[in-house]
């Protein structure tokens, strides 16, 4: 019996160990997994969409303003809506990993852990962009503003990247606490202020038809913020998830 066990042990030891998975394949696997699960349950997206629509409607009734003033507040209302809805999505996205212990399953994979972070950023970004794609025409109809301008769409993309990059990192920290629902916005909003301010300024610039030179400063800030936070998250994610 002992000999049989030793032989079997040797067989397992000699078995080929799987090749270390490619960083990008692991990243895409995480994103694909999140998207497949969400397309099936639609829990996260439906909550984000309903919330966004309610915020837009509330602002619409609260701000019964002149068309000109409405145009001026558009960027602020839009980004407030995106930020609140995004927070909902970030919280839920990480809670799914934590509640069934799946985060441990991810961390047990022999991949660079930042691949997990970037996979989550991609899926969170896709969820946020889907919400934005639905919110923009709805806002356009309610407020009588044409929002489908290439410049504005670019700003929304850059702002969403920055927001989900920092949001995914912070939600990974807060999901491990008992007060995660409350803690995420409390920690995230102060850190996300630069990206939100820059996004509002750049969006306002495109909506008001300002000179590109005027929009360049907030646009640069957005790009720099995105690069810095993605780099920071790449460096610290391993420590964030470690016990």
């Amino acid at each position, binding site marked *: 019996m002992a000999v049989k066990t030793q032989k079997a*042990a040797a*067989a397992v030891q000699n078995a080929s160990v799987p090749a270390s998975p490619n960083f990008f394949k692991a990243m895409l696997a995480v994103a694909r997994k999140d998207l497949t699960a969400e397309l099936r349950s639609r829990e996260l997206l439906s909550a984000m969409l309903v919330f966004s629509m309610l915020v837009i409607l509330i602002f619409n009734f609260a701000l019964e303003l002149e068309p000109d003033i409405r145009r001026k507040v558009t960027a602020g209302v839009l980004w407030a809506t995106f930020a609140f809805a995004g927070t909902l999505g970030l919280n839920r996205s990480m809670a799914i990993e934590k509640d*069934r212990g799946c985060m441990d399953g991810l961390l047990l994979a022999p991949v660079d852990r930042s691949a997990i972070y970037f996979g989550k950023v991609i899926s969170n970004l896709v969820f946020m962009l889907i919400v934005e794609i639905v919110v923009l025409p709805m806002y356009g109809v309610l407020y009588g503003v044409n929002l489908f301008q290439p410049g504005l769409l670019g700003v929304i993309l850059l702002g969403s990247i920055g927001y989900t990059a920092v949001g995914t990192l912070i939600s990974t920290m807060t999901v491990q606490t008992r007060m995660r629902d409350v803690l995420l916005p409390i920690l995230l909003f102060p850190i996300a202020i630069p990206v939100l301010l820059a996004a509002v300024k750049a969006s306002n610039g495109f909506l008001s038809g300002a000179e590109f030179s005027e929009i360049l400063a907030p646009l640069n800030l957005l790009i720099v913020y995105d690069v810095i936070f993605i780099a920071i998250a790449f460096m610290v994610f391993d420590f964030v998830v470690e016990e």
Partner: protein
Amino acid sequence: MIIVKKLVKRFGLKVVLRGVDFEVQPGEFVALLGPNGAGKTTFLRILASLSRPSMGGVSVAGYQLPNQAAQVRARLGVVSHQPLLYGDLTAEENLRFYARMYGLANREARITEILGMVGLENRRSDLVREFSRGMQQRLAIGRAVIHDPEVMLFDEPYTGLDQDASSMLDDVLKNVAAQGRTVVMTSHDLARAEDLATRFDILSRGVIAASAAQKDLQGGNLLDFYRKALAG
């Protein structure tokens, strides 16, 4: 296969492991027993590279932790009382996801093989959230062995299972062990541990209080051995 020397783990001022020495030979099935709060789960999480040791040396499959954690994880399968599975994915989607994370090339064949091994081939397209606790735990074992690991860690795998599900899990566990894997399992169920393991280590107050091979237990009375170890 596993060598642990003077392992200490602290959480703030609380010392959970106080210099654990532990060694497992290839192909051994070790049951790590002990009361609640003895540090069994913490110990297993350190072996699984999910937690860093505060002091001491840990080597799994010839690789040091925490410095060579990725190499260790490639050779390690972990099953805990939580299944680590996604409820909104089907059984095969869950396995496919983990197969991708482990970089397996022959994914589909391996998934079919694993589903057959855990007796879920007929439920491969069903959502995991519709599975019973026992089925989820069997699939969790399938997830843990998908990359054919040399070392398996089981943390209270019988938690929440009824008699039938436990018996089924027994068979799956025996199958996993019979393939020559090195297994460390924590459990409160002495009868099950006695049935499965080849060695018993008792973890108490943060140290290994006693250790005995199955053949060395006089009359096979694990309960007496366990009580004496805790009393000493």
